[in-house]
């Protein structure tokens, strides 16, 4: 039998063990199935899991269109499929399969990606997908989780697998120092002059930037940018000093394409004038290699870059 990992050290590890537990779980009624396209198929605990459950751990080879199509067919046969690969191969290559083989059929699935925007910093454009959340966001009905810590990833994957509907879980190698659990927008610190929303692993960097800015800002944290917690954002805005509550500045810090959440922030605050500052990865392709820290600096997602863009009024 399986053993849950007491302390997963990476989000990817947390995901794989959570998936294994769901497939092993006799109370889950054998409805969970894992569909892979080679990525992670050889990583613990998957080989032993596949030996125990050859019908419910399916590696289709390097065939990502088929991976999602098969997941769609399994959902029609009553299963809860988990689909997994690097973000560009899980989201962008089989985009029409996500749209038609899952969404259009009225089916649910859990899509789990690794690689994030540039975990493979020296890997170049082919293995980087800073657009993935924006791409998923064009499709109706998807919940999007962007955990910032392995313990958050563990919880979010388990909840997504046990639930219904379409869920995208975007894992990264970069993490915050500690987990922050809670649904929607979680208040990390309360200020009076403006609101900063940190998504996933950007939180620690945002807190450092805010602290060194000397500005009195509210910092909200979320692992779930979709559906966006509009009620939570409005409540945070109302708690600012009156002159800022009437015309707030909201800074979104997302570890993927800048402006991905501009639409939902605009909808949340469509009853008042407001300024949006949208931080994230730049749209232009850099054609640069290097470490994740190099890319963070280039995209303005390090402490200096974020600090330089913080507005208080």
């Amino acid at each position, binding site marked *: 039998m399986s053993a849950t990992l007491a302390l997963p050290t990476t989000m990817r590890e947390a995901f794989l063990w959570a998936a294994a537990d769901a497939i092993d779980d006799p109370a889950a009624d054998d409805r969970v199935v894992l569909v892979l396209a080679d990525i992670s198929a050889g990583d613990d605990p998957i080989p032993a899991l596949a030996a125990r459950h050859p019908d419910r751990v399916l590696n289709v*080879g390097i*065939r990502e*269109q*088929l991976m999602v*199509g098969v*997941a769609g067919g399994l959902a*029609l046969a009553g299963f809860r499929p988990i689909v997994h690969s690097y973000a560009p191969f899980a989201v962008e290559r089989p985009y029409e399969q996500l749209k038609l083989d899952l969404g259009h*059929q009225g089916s649910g699935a859990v899509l789990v990606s690794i690689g994030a925007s540039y975990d493979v910093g020296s890997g170049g454009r082919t293995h980087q997908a800073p657009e993935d959340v924006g791409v998923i966001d064009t499709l109706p009905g998807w919940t999007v989780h962007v955990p910032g810590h392995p313990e958050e990833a563990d919880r979010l994957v388990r909840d997504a697998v046990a639930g219904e509907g379409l869920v995208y879980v975007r894992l990264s190698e970069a993490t915050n120092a500690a987990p922050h659990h809670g649904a929607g927008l979680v208040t990390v610190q309360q200020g009076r002059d403006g609101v900063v929303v940190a998504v996933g692993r950007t939180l620690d960097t945002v807190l450092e930037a805010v602290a060194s800015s000397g500005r009195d800002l509210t910092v909200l944290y979320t692992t779930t940018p979709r559906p966006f917690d509009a009620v939570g954002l409005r409540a945070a805005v109302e708690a600012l000093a009156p002159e800022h509550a009437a015309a707030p500045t909201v800074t979104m810090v997302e570890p993927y394409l800048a402006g991905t959440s501009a639409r939902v922030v605009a909808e949340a605050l469509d009853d008042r004038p407001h300024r949006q500052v949208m931080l994230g990865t730049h749209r232009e392709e850099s054609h640069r290699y290097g470490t994740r820290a190099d890319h963070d600096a280039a995209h303005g997602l390090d402490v200096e870059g974020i600090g330089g863009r913080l507005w208080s009024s």
Partner: protein
Amino acid sequence: MTITRPPVTRSELHRLMSLMTGDEKHSAAATSTLDVLHVLYDRVLHVDPARPDDPARDRFLLSKGHGPMAFYAVLAAHGFLAESELVGWADHGSRLGLHPDRTLIPGVEIGSGSLGHGLPIAVGTALGLRARRIATGPDRPHGPRVVVLVGDAELDEGSNHEAIAYAGRRGLANLTAVVVDNASATHGWPGVWSETGLAERFLVEGWRAITVDGRDHDALELALDAAHHDRPLAVVARVEPKDS
């Protein structure tokens, strides 16, 4: 099950199809599939309009979703649709569009229209039904069947070839692909050993593959019921070329 109802006549299907107008562009596609659909629903599939969610039902997936007039006519003839619905098809309020939507019509297993999606979905459903080990009678020794209809031009889409290779390796004996071949693929499917290479694409990946006259009902029935104990089955149904 379908075998208990009287056979549907060809003239009845033509009459039902004539109720649907406005998609003449796809009439070649519609008529190319007519005999295959006729035989499937009359003689092969275990489906029941009174129990469209029966876990033990066979699944028919129309992957080639364009030109669905023959499909709708067969569904109406077998009690899945009211004949009166055919007249207003493709209207804003109709459940019947130029491409079918499974969420609107019980008995339609997939929404289709974009080519190259049905066969991969069928592979997933076949894997799922096999995993669930749903018991069926001796006429279906591998449980509920999954039958997917694709076109020869549709096989241009690469996603099909991902599915053909994987289904063969997995030995999916509960899966049948019917390829309606009206010679409409722009670059064709030349064969190495035979006149048409369509069957060869499946054979080399470990399928059983049979080529038949797509207008010969007895030949279609024989091929669709052919034994394929450890592998998926492909039936290439040749009909007159699209441009003839």
